[in-house]
């Protein structure tokens, strides 16, 4: 009985922290870049390809599905930015002892980490959908016979993009907890985050034909995210605040 009450309180507090963090993140400078910057960047790229296809040695009749382009851009930029944002926020908040006031209340340490991850990932999901929607609108007007196959590709691309970004977020959390220098955690999370992106791409190349790239990336993303989050939570539990 007492366990279930405690569990209820924990869930209630997780929800409170999640919405609080969401409120903090969605207005942050990094998120504004993701909300506005990514769709603009995507459109600029698409426009460049459309207007000067020879520059990229592509045929003028819609060379690359815009969705794939969007996926690549969002994964690399969105993943790196969110990893840096998470790592620097956590390092800086730990240095300022911000968590002390939460931890003297019925808040478990892992809930603080989980709420941050969920909040940033929610923002990323929304940013991804905004950028993809703009991409799809462009596709509809520029691709002949835009149909169900293209939509299926887009959905797969969204899944892969989110899997990569989720992994980047979780690696950012690890560095945020492990390091006490904000600059070091920013640099390392960006560097390792980018290296992880290559694992997803190279892995997909090696596996092409053997396994669906989409499923591979989703599976890898889920595995790595879970692993990194568990490591983060254990490290945070042991951390002397």
């Amino acid at each position, binding site marked *: 009985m007492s366990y279930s009450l405690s569990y209820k309180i924990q869930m209630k507090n997780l929800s409170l922290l999640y919405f609080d963090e969401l409120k903090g993140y969605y207005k942050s400078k990094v998120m504004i870049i993701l909300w506005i910057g990514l769709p603009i960047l995507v459109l600029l790229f698409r426009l460049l390809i459309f207007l000067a296809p020879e520059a990229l040695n592509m045929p003028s009749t819609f060379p690359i599905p815009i969705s794939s382009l969007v996926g690549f851009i969002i994964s690399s930029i969105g993943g790196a930015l969110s990893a840096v944002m998470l790592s620097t926020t956590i390092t800086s908040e730990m240095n300022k002892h911000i968590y002390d006031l939460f931890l*003297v*209340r019925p808040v478990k340490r892992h809930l603080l980490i989980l709420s941050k991850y969920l909040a940033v990932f929610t923002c990323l999901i929304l940013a991804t959908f905004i950028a993809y929607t703009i991409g799809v609108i462009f596709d509809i007007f520029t691709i002949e016979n835009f149909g169900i196959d293209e939509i299926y590709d887009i959905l797969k691309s969204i899944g892969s993009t989110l899997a990569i970004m989720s992994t980047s977020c979780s690696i950012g959390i690890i560095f945020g907890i492990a390091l006490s220098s904000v600059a070091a955690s920013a640099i390392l999370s960006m560097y390792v985050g980018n290296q992880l992106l290559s694992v997803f791409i190279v892995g997909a190349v090696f596996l092409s034909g053997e396994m669906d790239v989409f499923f591979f990336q989703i599976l890898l993303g889920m595995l790595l995210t879970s692993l990194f989050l568990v490591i983060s939570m254990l490290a945070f539990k042991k951390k002397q605040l």
Partner: protein
Amino acid sequence: MSKTSYLEFQNITKSYKKNIALDDLNLKINKGDIFGYIGPNGAGKTTTIKILVGLITEFQGKILIDNIPLEHAKQGLYQDLGYLPQEVGFQEWRTVEHALKTFGKLSGVNSNTLEDRINDSLKLVGLLDVKKRKIKHLSGGMIQKLRLSQAIINNPKLLVLDEPLSGLDPSSRFQVKKMIKELVKQDVTVIFSSHILSDVEDFATNIGIINKGRLLKIGTPTEFENYYDIGKIIEIKYDEGISPLPDIDLDCIQNIDIGKIKQKIHIKPNSDLDLSISEILKFIIAKKLKVRSFNVLRPSLEEVYLKLVEEDDK
């Protein structure tokens, strides 16, 4: 009637690698006490407090709250605890109100009364007019008041204040002290740590002095004052420009320290103090001296504190 023991620290030992932060600490705090926890920087005050509030979980020994071990009392303690850490920041994107709302909800304040609690705690610390302001726009003094405000948002029964006056300018120190005095009028058990004894001597009912992780002495302010026998000394202050008491020839006097406007008269150990006071006063009246103050000196708490720490350091 003796007071009930509310908090009990039993044989608490805590080490950081090879450094012993707390060495077999035993301490009892009664319900309703205002406990001044005094010691130099690095003495072990913050470690004791962090163990009590659950920020440090790995230590040896036992803590009882209302006779219930801390680990079992935690669920209830969360609602009854107010904690002001020595150094703590806030997420600066929050407004004052938003921060208090979150901490209030987490402390279990009923949503129907939360708004009133926020207003009451802000009013007490004098921040009601900046309720909607973002934390990043608050001054250092205001942030310290906000820290205090979050500590009392849930009407705590146990208020733990870790160096609440450190880093404040004299004006803010005065204001925060005033607020704490207001708070302690309510039925709250308070633990107030400081490295400056004068911070707590106005309102502490009990004082504990800690140095190098060991509790050196615990007692009431009066017990501390009587701890060292400095002899029977009478201090007389005069109007400026008035020459101090002329040579006085009374049997009870051992010697006199003469200052510019004051004198310290040391009474012989075997003389009766009350009788000596009466004789000296008669002498002053006979000489028609203008006296500003006439006091029997007792060792100040600061002197006792310094002596205790000095002796321990040796």
